[in-house]
């Protein structure tokens, strides 16, 4: 029988090694897999996508820009560009680099795959929003054309990804996308959020944490120095000016953006009428709420709370349904005192 202290020591060592190797993102196995994935083709495709994004907005793509985006030395970036040129996917254009037609088509296919994957992750899985982009980045290189089309069919040929970016069709068309950065709105102006920039990741996470999501209506209250104060879904947020351009909005009349009450605000015995389901509620969760009858125009009464306070039982369309506080916060109500609806 081995000495207990030695046994514990060995156990601790083995456990430590296992953790080092198998830890989800930073472990040895994960790192090795990431490195192996970064084959030549993947690198070229990443470069191609960068060129597309850089030139899409009318800007210039340079080797330095590429080096920064892919986090590689300048020499490597130049090398990648040379290879792209050799394959006829890019060409020199003045001070920078431009895509050839073939290169553009290839890049659009990649963008399509990426955004379809993000839509899949948002609609059919429970993966956290902050991880959509990275996961899509990984998988987009592994899918064949047939797989991509099959995925698009399964998802119902979506037009926009969960960030609001348009998804190119199989033939390379892009649906229209009109909007202005949040920074372009003046105080008192309002708009619907149509896009939230997914890179850099920290910015996206910050916006996520503030509870911003596509489809929300917001009003700019005040522009003060380095911050923008907005009101969205009844809450007031302060965003640093630098990250305001990451949010794109389509201008809407300001008075329509006030919707302070959600179901979570109802106390037992109170009734409210559903105005809309927040866009932050997506995928299977949204479909379930709709199936239960939580649609605009429905009267919902809070009946009683559970012994622990959460969830709360609501009467919806004659049935008693328990909803968690988080779900109740997704259900926006019409302002109290709205006139009764006409019988249909």
């Amino acid at each position, binding site marked *: 029988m081995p000495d207990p202290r030695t046994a514990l020591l060995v156990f601790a060592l083995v456990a430590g090694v296992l953790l080092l190797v198998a830890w989800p993102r930073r472990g040895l196995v994960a790192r090795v897999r990431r490195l192996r994935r970064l084959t030549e083709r993947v690198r070229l495709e990443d470069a191609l996508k960068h060129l597309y994004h850089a030139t899409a907005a009318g800007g210039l793509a340079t080797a330095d820009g590429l080096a920064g985006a892919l986090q590689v030395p300048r020499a490597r970036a130049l090398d990648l560009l040379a290879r792209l040129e050799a394959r006829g996917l890019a060409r020199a254009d003045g001070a920078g680099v431009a895509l050839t037609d073939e290169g553009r088509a290839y890049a659009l296919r990649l963008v399509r795959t990426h955004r379809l994957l993000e839509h899949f992750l948002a609609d059919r899985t429970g993966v956290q929003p902050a991880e959509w982009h990275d996961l899509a980045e990984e998988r987009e290189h592994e899918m064949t054309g047939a797989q991509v089309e099959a995925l698009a069919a399964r998802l119902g040929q979506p037009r926009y990804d969960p960030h609001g970016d348009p998804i190119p069709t199989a033939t390379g068309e892009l649906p229209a996308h009109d909007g202005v950065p949040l920074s372009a709105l003046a105080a008192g102006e309002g708009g619907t959020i149509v896009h939230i920039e997914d890179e850099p990741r920290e910015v996206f996470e910050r916006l996520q944490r503030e509870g911003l999501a596509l489809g929300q209506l917001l009003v700019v209250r005040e522009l003060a120095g380095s911050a923008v104060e907005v009101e969205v879904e009844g809450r007031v947020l302060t965003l640093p000016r630098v990250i305001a351009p990451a949010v794109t909005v389509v201008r809407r009349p300001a008075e329509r953006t006030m919707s302070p009450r959600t179901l979570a605000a109802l106390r037992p015995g109170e009734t409210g009428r559903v105005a809309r389901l927040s866009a932050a509620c997506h995928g299977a969760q949204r479909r379930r709420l709709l199936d239960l009858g939580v649609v605009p125009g429905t009267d919902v009464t809070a009946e009683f709370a*559970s012994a622990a306070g959460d969830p709360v039982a609501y009467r919806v*369309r004659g049935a008693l349904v328990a909803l968690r506080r988080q779900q109740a916060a997704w259900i926006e109500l019409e302002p109290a005192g709205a006139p009764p609806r006409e019988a249909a």
Partner: protein
Amino acid sequence: MTAATACRTCAPGREEALVQLGVSTGRWDYLVALAGNPNTGKSTVFNALTGLRQHTGNWPGKTVTRAEGVFASHGRRVKLVDLPGTYSLQAGSTDEEVARDFILFGRPDVTVVVLDATRLERNLNLALQVLEITDRVVICLNLMDEARRHGIAVDPVALGRELGVPVVATSARRGEGVDALRQAIHDVATGAVQPRPFRVTRHDPAVEALVGEVREAVEAAFPGLPNARWVALRLLNADERVEEAVRSGELARLAGLAAPATAAATVPAGTPADGAAVLAAASAARWKLQPDFHDRLTQGIYGAAERITRAVQLTGLRRARFDLDRTLDRLLTSRVTGFPVMLLLLGVVFWLTIAGANVPSALLADLLIDRVHPLLRAAAAGLPWWLGGILVDGVYLATAWVVSVMLPPMAIFFPLFTLLEDFGYLPRVAFNLDALFRRAGAHGKQALTMCMGFGCNAAGVVATRIIDSPRERLVAILTNNFSLCNGRWPTQILVASVFLGSLVPAAFAGLVSAGAVVGITLLGVAAMFASSWLLTRTVLRGEATSFSLELPPYRPPRLLQTLYTSLVDRTLIVLWRAVVFAAPAGAVIWLVGNVRAGGASLAEHLVGWLDPLGVLIGLNGVILLAYVVAIPANEIVIPTVLMLTVLTQGVAGVGAGAGVMFELESAAQVGELLRGAGWTALTGLNLMLFSLLHNPCSTTIYTIYRETGSVKWTVVSVLLPLALGFTATFLVAQAWRIAAGG
């Protein structure tokens, strides 16, 4: 009866579709599907129509149960297929897919939609969707007695006028209206009644315009298709299955079936060009859709449901009774009384199970093991010694043990639990505990499956079907093993009283050992929460999740019905599976004790090899071997341990021979035997820990495989508790030894 004459209204193509859906096509005249929301008494209607002539199975390729039955009506045989309870047919989940596929492609002669009269408006969502797919519908307005009790009156005649199909009011559990239902089914099946169903058409104008475009394309390509509008809606939603049907010509065949039969009827072939045109039109229309198309559709359906309900329903007719439900809810979910009542009720259930099962278990053991076993041994005297040994001492003995330990507690626990379920209380338990489970990433209903697991883990795993969110269901399945099942209680109680109770003065022994067992149980609950939390943050991170919990109205439970369902559905079926696994285990145990090699039995060799590992984690080789061979059933661990101890120690005069499991009369005797073999308090404690934290029994493993359909998750369910068990026993052993001196 050949398939041709059996299926009179069939046309070519339907038979293949039916075979694919798993329905056999012989020996029935009409096919009827039974659809409805969950919790509408649909299974009561099913039972009322078919009696005992039914059998359950799974839908092909899916882990969704399905019941089929037959009944006679006006001299014809009618086959009834029970579809899964669903809120809608939008095909967002497997249940909905199954139901939708059957109604669309199986083309039942009649679809019966069961509605709950106490929740009419919500139930109409499904009814209206079914009416969009098929004309031949009968509405069964069930739970009329409950509606009366709640002061709700629904006019079935008015409802029939609104919906355009026959409506039959029933109280299936009382047998009221069942004959009228049969008549209505017969009328619609034979064509005596031609329903003119109401279709929801007042969606908002933008939606209607697009639907019209696609519908025209569908009608042009497939003239005669009765549900062109519904097909158009599904294509706009990019429904994969419907698209495939258009592409492959399946929909064309359906259109051919719908067209009136003429003398020279030929099925119009859906050429690829037709299908492509339709898909192109749908694709173009979809491009113009607003993103909230699905929302608006549902809104339209509910708008119609609301209007219809207002026209046919009166409420508030009887205030007094309605308040009973409210009072009950207040009592069972309030901050003050909610938890105490819950603990009290669950405590009573457990106490009744343990106390009530003692005597029957002892009686069964006495009968099967003390009396029948020697008789069988005598009867097997004529057989070769090894055959008799395997069959009588191995297979029979193991099976007898499992039955005598497993059956009485389950026969008490499951009916009690089912009574609470029928009454409507169990969802309130999930409601109260959800906040706690949500923090661990799980669903409140996991409290219920956890409780079922205390009866039997296999039953607990099957019970997870009540959780319809994929991620939460997997968590419940993978952690169910941490509920200390019935088969492990005897081990825990025995070991606690022998090894832990003896550490304290006799006056406190009983208290200490009971406390130890309770402690282990609570540890299991803690392990369940901890592993749920871990799983949802690692391997289950990406699984889809959608929480919903409906609180059905309280209903007086039906005692006899409950006893029958819980005994047959739960107890006997689980027992059968356990016996199937225990029998071979018995054979293995006997063989291990009797096959000799190199001068010692196989058991002694294996014990020798396993001993070093065993001692390292505070157990010993005997225990490890017992757990290996007793994977099939936890009930036979202690008898196997005793047998192996006697075998390896060469103790004379105890037991019933090599390879034969046995039990001793008193705990004191057990203690003497085991201590003589070198067992200490540490061994006892770690055995209790390991008994809690080890792989599930093979019945449960098999059930997990059937429910998840995945080898990966089954492997996780085995390795997770095993890893925890080894780690826990290892750490405790080292700590104990360090503390004990050295």
